[in-house]
């Protein structure tokens, strides 16, 4: 089932036209796109379109893949200074610096765009609004690129996504016989499209293939299994590292601390935190209510499939977008799809 709108205005552009367009964007704004950094694919600023790693177009990487970290890091960076505290004598002065540059992100995969949508629910749509996130979100345009096939660990189709889901993008691109079909999804996206230069078309994108769907356990199922021995068993191999949360497009926990920059100057920083880490839930006095690895790992799965839908609704079945990064990068092979399948089975 393709989720693209049949009545949308579309343009057919060649690879050269696309590159020229991106070069133009990079001249006027900050363009962020998948780039190879020491053999890794990451979303990084690019000055020209030839720096972009065109996945699925080179003999070395014929397969379409997603960057190691999701676009989350653009809106919710690993470390962010919230404000600076200047202290002289009895006087204390606070100073905020907001991000205010215009950014265009190219090559966003549908799973990542949905991740941003899920983050919006708590950073933008719930009071108090996170002003840092809001600034970044407002100044950023997402140019999506539909996937042509599923990667080895992908399972977006099982958690309500699809390979060509355009919903959460500003502009969506579909590959079509070596060319691209462009579609303006939002007003913000429409603004970036050069009206006269591109050839309009009424062609529609190919239907995305659907494969390997499996059922995701319903909310009631999760409640039943909360005190199950199962969590202790699967977490025995867990190393309590934080890879799964840091590569996840929707993990959004953070820690806040005031740190000294130099005498008289301090900064309040916010940085990523993760429930799998040993210190995550520790409270003043040293008590750790989630002392067991199993309790911590259970929290990760419950957060995705129970707590998030419970708290933010959104009609979303889960806060998991099926990108499969946690499966790919877990050093000990903890597999979220395995957990989902196990929960479906009777206890």
């Amino acid at each position: 089932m393709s989720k693209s709108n049949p009545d949308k205005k579309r343009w057919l552009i060649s690879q050269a036209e696309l590159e020229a367009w991106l070069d133009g964007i990079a001249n006027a704004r900050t363009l962020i796109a998948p780039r190879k950094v020491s053999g890794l694919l990451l979303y990084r600023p690019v000055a020209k379109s030839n720096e972009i790693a065109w996945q699925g177009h080179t003999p070395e990487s014929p397969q379409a893949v997603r960057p190691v970290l999701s676009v989350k890091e653009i809106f919710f960076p690993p470390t962010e200074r919230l404000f600076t505290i200047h202290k002289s004598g009895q006087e204390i002065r606070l100073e905020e610096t907001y991000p205010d540059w215009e950014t265009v992100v190219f090559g966003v995969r549908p799973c990542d765009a949905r991740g941003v949508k899920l983050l919006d629910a708590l950073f933008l749509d719930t009071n108090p609004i996170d002003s840092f996130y809001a600034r970044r979100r407002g100044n950023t345009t997402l140019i999506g690129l539909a996937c042509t096939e599923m990667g080895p660990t992908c399972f977006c189709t099982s958690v309500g996504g699809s390979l060509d889901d355009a919903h959460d993008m500003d502009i969506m691109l579909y590959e079509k016989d070596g060319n691209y079909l462009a579609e303006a999804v939002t007003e913000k996206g429409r603004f970036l499209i050069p009206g006269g230069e591109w050839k309009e078309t009424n062609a529609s994108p190919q239907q995305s293939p659907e494969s390997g769907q499996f059922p995701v356990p319903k909310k009631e199922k999760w409640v039943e299994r909360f005190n199950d021995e199962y969590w202790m068993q699967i977490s025995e191999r867990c190393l309590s590292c934080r890879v799964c949360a840091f590569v996840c497009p929707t993990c959004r926990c953070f820690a806040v601390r005031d740190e000294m920059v130099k005498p008289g100057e301090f900064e309040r920083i916010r940085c990523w935190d993760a429930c799998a880490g040993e210190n995550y839930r520790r409270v003043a006095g040293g008590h750790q209510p989630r002392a067991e690895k199993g309790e911590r790992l259970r929290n990760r799965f419950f957060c995705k499939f129970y707590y998030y839908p419970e708290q933010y609704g959104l009609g979303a079945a889960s806060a998991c977008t099926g990108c499969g990064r946690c499966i790919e990068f877990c050093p000990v092979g903890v597999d979220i799809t395995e957990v989902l399948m196990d929960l479906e089975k009777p206890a």
Partner: protein
Amino acid sequence: MYEPRIIAFLCSWCSYTGADTAGIARMKSPANIRAVRVPCSGRVSPELIMRAFDQGADGVLVLGCHIGECHYDTGNHRAAKRIPILRSLLTFVGLEPERLRLDWVSASEGERFSKIANEFTATVRTLGPVHWRISPDKQQAVSHMLAVTREAIPYPDTDCGAKTDAIRQKARELLASNQVSCVIGYELNRRGRTRPVFVYTPEETSRLVWNPDCTNNLTNYLPAKLRLVKGKEPAKQIAVVVKPCDSKAINVMVAENQYRRDQVYALGVACEGIRDLDGNLQIRCITCQEAVPIVCDTLISGTTSSFIPRLSSYAREEIAELQNAAPTERLEFWLSQFDRCIRCYACRQACPMCNCPACLYERDDSTFIGLGIGLNEKRTFHLGRAYHLAGRCVGCNECERACPMNIPIGLLNQKLAEEIEAAFDHRAGLTIAPSPIVTILSGEYKEG
């Protein structure tokens, strides 16, 4: 002329008094030196030195009592071992070695203090300011480094089936006879990925496998499972499947009293190497010298031994390449590598040697490193971790494998392992012996 900022850590008993003596005798000492009085030169941990460089010091001077005259007996022995090792690490990541100096000044040697202070200040002045930061444009320029093109060695044909059967059989025996409470081994998950598994009953032993993807160092799980708790019976013996590299970790942990040797039953597998995601031998295996586990209660040898000795030396080519580069290039290279770090701690958690109950770099009261995921914190974390592993790292290279950001952390550990071997003739894990860094001097440190 550039006026450097120099931090001098002075031992309270000898060197600080020595500096006083210099003052009383009206000998000139440079004003660049900021003295920090410490109880003993052995108190000057590498974190303090790195912190000083972090906060803008251009040089760090550590002065203590002469060897044999320490007021705490062996404090300066420790400094004499640690600081040269730290210096070689900092040099490897691009700091000029002249910026860190260790020397001995007694209470009466005012003249010597003045001479050392003047010499050191002059040296650092010619070096100029420290460049500990990196700009994004430079990051591009150094990204070509370390492009060592090594011929991929395909994974040899092996008799994994025979080894799998042998492991299962032995595990069944051990569990059925109640000799061990648990067998830690490898299994295949539904996706066909090899991962650690914990087997508690003889029936479950059919889950155990051996294949060329058994990469995890399973000894990592032992300290938590076997931890000696005061007033409690020691945990029952646990069997663990180990490769030659992993097995050395048992020796180090036993030397460090994490558990007793008799609490572990090592199912040692004769190893032909482990392959990476592309199906080639992993880097650690290319430089590996051991086919048979050092620590082993039962040897799982399979039917044939197809271990092929690879490189004649266990050094990684990248280390030589980096050492030939200019210090500024090395610094830029390493900072651009650390810059990618997301502080997920996968390296630390995958490391069997990183078994402190609370990591120094994650403690709330740690002033050595902040909470942020900034370049300063990441650099201190990685260099500090490498230093803490000096003489203890067994080279299983799981840290580098677990890193999602492809940071060549293993190079730091390997470099320090070479350094320790040259200085102290010690290779971690070959015998039950602690790291030479935590013991007192038996002869002076031979600087390589």
